[in-house]
């Protein structure tokens, strides 16, 4: 079988400014991660699992993507990230949610898969698990970028305006899925 590595960098209303940055980031992810699929003198075994983790890790470090560094901000202006990874050979999987200040949630997810008898950890327990496994707990708000903050600010202003115009919350939410929001759709 010919090895293939396929990635995505998110969907939604990607601006003309952001599109080339996403393309560059995906190409970099492919160039780094494809090495795990090619048997070379340095890597003796081809591994789909290593390749997908490596590709996602590269994109988690790139602020052009909504993951890791550069993630969208929640209503409190904080980053809360989630990730999952699955190995199709044995249907093993690891999932993690509600992590903060950890740049590679995909690796925490893989660690859950390898080192626990569970599949999904979330919240403070997941945070503690990641810390105990040696994943660096960054300083508070280290994953917040200027761009994410500006988008959050615009979102807050729009919701205040909608509140002034007496829309109900459900009307705003229903409206938001009818078209791509400018900040992307997750």
């Amino acid at each position, binding site marked *: *079988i*010919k090895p*293939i*590595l*396929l*990635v*995505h*960098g*998110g*969907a*939604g*209303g*990607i601006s003309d400014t952001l599109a080339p940055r996403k*393309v560059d980031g*995906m190409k970099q*992810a*492919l160039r780094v991660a494809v090495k*795990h699929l090619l*048997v070379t003198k340095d890597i003796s075994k*081809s*591994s*789909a*699992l290593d*390749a*997908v*983790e490596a*590709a*996602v890790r590269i*994109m988690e470090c790139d602020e052009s993507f*909504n*993951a*890791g560094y550069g*993630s*969208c901000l*929640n*209503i409190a202006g904080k980053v*809360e990230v*989630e*990730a*999952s*990874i*699955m190995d*199709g*050979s044995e249907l093993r999987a690891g999932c*993690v949610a509600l992590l903060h200040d950890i740049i590679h*949630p*995909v690796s925490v*997810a893989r660690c859950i898969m390898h080192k626990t008898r569970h*599949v*999904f950890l*979330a919240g403070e327990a997941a945070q503690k698990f990641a810390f105990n496994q040696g994943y660096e707990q960054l300083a508070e708000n280290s*994953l917040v970028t200027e761009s*994410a903050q500006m*988008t*959050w600010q615009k*979102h807050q202003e729009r919701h205040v305006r909608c509140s002034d115009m007496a829309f109900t919350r459900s009307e705003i939410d229903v409206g938001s*899925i009818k078209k791509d*929001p400018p900040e992307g*759709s*997750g």
Partner: protein
Amino acid sequence: TVGAVAIDIEGNIAAATSTGGITGKMLGRIGDSSLLGCGTYADNLVGGVSATGHGETIMRFNLAQKIMAKIHYECKTAQAATEEACKEMTKRLLGTGGAITIGSNGQLGVYWTTRRMAWAYVKNGEICYGVDHDKTFKEPL
């Protein structure tokens, strides 16, 4: 959101997805990316999927599993399964999204109902990529 799906020379398939969610989400909100069958799935016998888009919609539709089912039970190609599932999701629930898929036979599927989706793959020493529906670019690895 970012995601990756790979098949290695032994036919092993893996998938991964990671996200920061959506701007202004409630505290404690979880989307599709961390949920198996929604944002991520991999099975060597069928294929692998990573999804992106409106998380609540993708969760309610089980997008990744729907794509897998179309490949497994309806013998659809990875591309047809991905396209049909994304279109059905948006027709039924209004919310939009996209997915990338690799079938167990090495077929690729890429489709989205959002305005754009960033995607790229490497195969046979060549990178293919795109952002818009009707534009695909290629270059050497």
